[in-house]
């Protein structure tokens, strides 16, 4: 069903392409106290939309709206702080307007997730998108189901048996990914590329695969290691030690969110949320050295 509304299309275009128009519109609505009217109108429209959807989709159990990429909104360089504040306001003060007459998933910025008050209590459940759990955070024991799940991601994309003579070395790649599918696939892509460059005919032998896996992981450790700030090391050590994120101060929250955005810190969910360093970060020279030093100090103190 298509409804053509030329004026609305023009307005949408103007809103998209002309930031000044958007600003003027927003200022006018705010100054005239009409913002809440607009929000109310939107809700009324959505009520009607739900009814139309229900009628059109008989037998369906309901509507779920996914508002993606909210977390990526940073604003231009002159107004990034303003934009950050605006996003925070939407989720903590104006959250009522986000409650729509159907299920909605908003992708919120990571820093918002780490605030202890506000959104969590008011809007509903705010949770991290967890990584695939590969080990138990208390015992450190491997969780085979997690490895199987990661392998399935690969199986859906290729015939593993035809490509690899032995899949055991792939466990090292899964482990190095920390259960983060994008990193897993990126490393797998790099492995296949190296095999092609080395003119290896599939199925790739166990020895060749082991060698390439080692090289690729080494390269990825470098990629992860370079952008780590020295001043972030204490925070990373704390995450490694406590499996939680420090969130005492506002500045800490923003900093940890940055580490989260860059996947230096990964979040997991089983029963409760817990956090750990990305295995590639953990293996980087400076983090490894710091963690070893901390361990040595701990042992010394215990003795």
């Amino acid at each position, binding site marked *: 069903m298509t409804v053509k509304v030329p004026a609305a299309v023009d307005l949408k275009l103007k809103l998209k392409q002309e930031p000044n128009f958007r600003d003027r519109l927003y200022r006018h609505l705010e100054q005239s106290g009409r913002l809440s009217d607009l929000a109310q109108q939107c809700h009324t429209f959505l009520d009607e939309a739900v009814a139309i959807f229900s009628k059109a989709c008989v037998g369906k159990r309901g509507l779920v709206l996914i508002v*993606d*990429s909210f977390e*990526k*909104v*940073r604003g*231009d*360089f*002159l107004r*990034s702080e303003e934009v950050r504040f605006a996003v925070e306001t939407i989720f903590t003060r104006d959250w009522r307007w986000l409650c729509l007459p159907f299920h909605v998933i908003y992708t919120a910025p990571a820093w918002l997730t780490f605030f202890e008050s506000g959104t969590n209590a008011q809007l509903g459940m705010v949770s991290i998108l967890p990584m695939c759990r590969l080990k138990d955070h208390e015992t450190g024991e491997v969780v085979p189901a997690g490895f199987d799940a990661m392998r399935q991601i690969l199986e859906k994309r290729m015939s593993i048996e035809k490509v690899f003579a032995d899949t055991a070395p792939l466990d090292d790649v899964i482990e190095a990914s920390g259960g983060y599918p*994008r*990193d897993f696939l*990126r490393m797998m*892509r*790099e492995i*296949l*590329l190296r095999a*092609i*460059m080395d003119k290896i005919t599939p199925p790739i032998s166990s020895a060749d695969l082991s060698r390439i896996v080692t090289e690729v992981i080494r390269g990825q450790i470098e*990629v992860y290691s*370079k*952008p780590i*700030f020295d*001043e972030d090391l204490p925070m990373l050590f704390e995450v490694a030690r406590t499996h939680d994120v420090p969130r005492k101060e506002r500045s800490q929250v923003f900093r940890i969110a940055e580490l989260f*955005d*860059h*996947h230096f810190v990964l979040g997991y969910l089983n029963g409760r949320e817990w956090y750990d360093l990305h295995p590639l970060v953990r293996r980087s020279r400076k983090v490894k050295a710091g963690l070893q030093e901390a361990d040595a100090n701990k042992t010394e103190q215990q003795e």
Partner: protein
Amino acid sequence: MPTRPSSKSDQPFDLGQDGEAQFERLRASIEHGRGFELYFCGFESLASLAEVKRRLSTTLPPGHVFETLPLETPAALRTIAELLAAIGPVPAGRRIVFAGPSGWEEDVKAEWAVALRRLNERRNLTIRECPNAIVLAGPSWFPWLAHDEAPDLWSVRTAVFAFPGIAPARDKSPTLEPSDWRSGLPMAHELQPPEYYEELAAALEGSRRPGEQETRGRLLLRASAAWQLHGEYDNALRAATNARDAFEDAHKELMVAVTMGKIADILQQRGETDEALRILREEVLPVFERLGDVRARAVTMSRIALILYQKGELEEVFAVLGEAAAAFEQLKMANEAAQVRGLQKIIVEVKGSPSERRTAEENRDQLST
């Protein structure tokens, strides 16, 4: 910082062992990849960037179409999302889109920061609009800027390629293209409006990396120079003070001193000669002396002499100019030394040489006794 000339030669040249390995990886990625893929390439040498671009445009297998985004100036990066969207896919085969803007390195860095943030925000849209192999090229810091500014972009179907520098002896190209990433400060006629530089500097304000803060300082220095040209000394002073703070954050002692010299310059133009003199003597000169920068010290001495001349303290001017001239002579900077010696002559003409004046004063004393 890549400042070497880019090669205009059509003849292939060796990128060095690591460079060749990186190129082979890039080439294989392009040949075997599909759909949207993003390659962040950092180059230490402009010559190797030109060579990689040449190879990509001429040696790809059939079915691959090479296209360069029209990014003649760094500011063109502001439309990169629209440019990518306008390209569209190739009906059969694969399109390689190359984006490597040229211009002043500081401008390039700040504009990339803005562009990367924008691409990060509309990542999903770009993936749909431009399902091609996109090669984003810049100086060696570029991939790490992308990491900081565009974490989501970074984590999706991307790969990083770091091309090392090449031996200067292998780079035969005699000319420096005007579009190269250049270091230093532009000439007055090359300056953009001051607001342009202040906007760019703001793009890097949030970064915690010293390199980015140094770049921000350089952009603010340019803003200051542009304000100064417009005769707006208060704004020039504000921009220079912000530049100094940025250099301090980046722990760039030399640049802090250079900026203090700039601040002294502005104060002098505003008629605050005593403060200008104090800054040059107490905050600029000691740094150049400690760092052993003889040339910068000589230039500063000359500037001190000019302020003293304005104040009418001619005797001290003569001595300071003498020190400056000696330093220039030591550096075999004959033109500068001759200019300073010329200034000394003018002082003598105005007031007589110190020895002549000393003799005259002694004669006067003898006569009085």
